[in-house]
């Protein structure tokens, strides 16, 4: 085991997939000689040639549409959208074709393709480079949506996504690209695709998180532990399919739950989780399921992103509110504000 970054793990996953299955292709903007703006495809063109890893014209709808056609033709394309907001031009192809083709053909055509999207913020990016867009995909039936939080998961979830018979939107938390971990990328991890995992155990409350928010949750749990509060941290790993069992089991034990999501809150994935948890664990809950999210604003400029991002303090504030009564503080604040 050596220490590798998430970026390296993703690169290795692509390399191994290209090696093992000649139907796998990698394409997109700047993924060839440059190796991608985040270097996730570094060296692939050199090793596998332009036929297997190549730059396309600059057109996201075209890239995804091309992947659809090639997948129909028997290949397994892995395409890169350069940044979250630059996948939006491909939205029609994703929502109307990628998500629906199997269903429209009554299962006669499969679309084994992966759309990789570096997403979310925390890297001081300028406008349009830091959107958290996972909810758009998670809300679209027919798409699997995955987002790793650890180096090992980055590798295995990407391998699983490429091997999957269905289209997968693979959301890469760009701020974790440089996170480093001792990781075994050469032996099959035990954890199946679609299964969440408790990254830390605790009896007092459950923090549910995914992607970029998992390290925040873990940090918060660390701090809380110093105050004697034992927080369990569940990392979802895949948003679709959703692992109800792991989440529900945890919350039934702890009786309290905070859901963390970096995206703007309104109608995001955290809303889904909060809704599900209270539906399924209502009588075990000692407090409402709270959400800690970004604000309902366009992603802010670098100088202000710290104010927007749900950090350890915001999570701990929510944990504090788990003990109390009917009216979360936010309501008092709302009354003050209006």
């Amino acid at each position, binding site marked *: 085991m050596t220490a590798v970054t998430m970026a390296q793990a993703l690169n290795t996953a692509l390399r191994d997939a290209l090696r093992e299955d000649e139907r796998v292709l990698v394409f997109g903007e700047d993924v060839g000689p440059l190796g991608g703006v985040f270097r996730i495809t570094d060296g692939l063109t050199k090793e596998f040639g332009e036929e297997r890893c190549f730059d396309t014209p600059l057109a996201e709808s075209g890239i995804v*549409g091309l992947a659809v056609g*090639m997948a129909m033709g028997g*290949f397994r394309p892995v395409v890169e959208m350069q940044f979250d907001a630059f996948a939006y031009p491909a939205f029609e192809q994703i929502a109307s074709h990628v998500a629906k083709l199997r269903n429209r053909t009554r*299962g006669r055509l499969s679309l084994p393709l992966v759309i990789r999207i570096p997403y979310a913020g925390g890297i001081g990016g300028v406008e349009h480079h830091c959107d958290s867009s996972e909810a758009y995909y998670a809300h679209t039936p027919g798409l699997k949506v995955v987002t790793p939080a650890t180096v090992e998961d980055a590798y295995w979830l990407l391998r699983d996504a490429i091997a999957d018979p269905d289209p997968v939107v693979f959301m890469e938390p760009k701020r974790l690209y440089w996170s480093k971990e001792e990781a075994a990328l050469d032996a099959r991890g035990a954890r199946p695709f679609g299964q969440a995992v408790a990254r830390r155990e605790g009896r007092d409350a459950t923090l549910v998180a995914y992607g970029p928010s998992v390290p925040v949750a873990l940090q918060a749990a660390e701090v809380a532990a110093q105050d004697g509060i034992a927080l369990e941290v569940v990392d979802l790993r895949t948003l679709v399919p959703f692992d109800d069992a792991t989440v529900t089991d945890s919350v039934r034990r702890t009786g309290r739950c905070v859901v963390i999501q970096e995206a703007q809150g309104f109608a995001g994935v955290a809303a889904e989780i909060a809704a599900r948890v209270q539906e399924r664990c209502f009588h075990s809950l000692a407090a409402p399921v709270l959400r800690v999210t970004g604000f309902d604003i366009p992603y802010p400029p670098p100088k202000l992103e710290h104010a927007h991002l749900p950090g350890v303090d915001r999570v701990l504030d929510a944990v504090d509110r788990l003990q109390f009564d009917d009216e979360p503080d936010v309501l008092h604040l709302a009354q003050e504000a209006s």
Partner: protein
Amino acid sequence: MSVKALRQAVDSLLPSLVPVRFAAENGTAVKSPGAYTAPSDELLREAYRRMILGRRFDTQATALTKQGRLAVYPSSRGQEACQIAGVLALREDDWLFPTYRDSVALVSRGIDPVEVLTLLQGGWHCGYDPAATRVAPQCTPLATQTIHAVGMAEALRRKGEDSIAMAFIGDGGTSEGDFHEALNSAAVLRAPVVFLVQNNQYAISVPLAKQTVAPALAYKGIGYGVRSEQVDGNDLVAMLSVLTAAVEHVRSGQGPFLVEAHTYRMDAHTNADDATRYRQAAEVEKWESADPVARLETYLRGRGVIGDEDVEAARTAAEAFAAQVRAGMNAETEADPFELFDHVFAEPTPQLREQRALLASELHAQED
């Protein structure tokens, strides 16, 4: 490059100044354009049979909407020469990427007409098996299928097959960004794909003049370095001749080809549309006299390629086919609600299994 070579390169990408035509509107032969050769008589006889059949299928489908057996039908009437030439220019192992308007093409390709009409009947999607027929599902989101065709063409090329892809698209669809991205990626990849624009003069109610002010849609080709041609889309002979050349060009690895067929949508957009709201009867009449089926018949009779017997035989076959369509559409197809959960993914997610169970309990309760 020398200026002369540049000029030649540019000229090679521009379409003919006027649409290629073999038969005049009244069906008499015109001096055929040098570059294109007429299809063989045998092929033309086959084309004729298909034209008669295609037209009959189309009027039958329209009639079925009036009887409520079809929810909606976008008619191909007037566009048969485009669609049938497209199909005839392809081999069986070539792929076709049609739109919602191309039912006549699909029938001509040999797909069971009941399967072709499944979707329009309100039933399970797409109807036929795209992998077996090498025909993509009829596509509604405009222009999106043109990129799929490029991807498929590229896949075929990479697999070393010498089959190709052909994408159909309407005049309105050419305004969508996806058409642009498809042409460009096809050109850059040198993908073996033919784009056939059926310019039927309307996008629902919007006439061509509000869609483009280009001299012709075929002039879009040069902006991508794509060879292009414009053809009289109501002249089967010209369509077949040009499309055969285009397919050859593409199959031989010379890159994509764009063909614009000037034609006319003789019926309303669909049976649900009221075309009198936006176009004059006089215009429709003018085009009725340029009818592709009648024109082909006159042309072929005039050249002695077909006679009364052929005409009779084609009509009889078409009637039999229409009867078969009617019979097929009378058989009520079952739609199983539980199948709704079966094809979202290869394996339903736990969430879909829950939802399936919920539906089962609802249906169970209703039975009580």
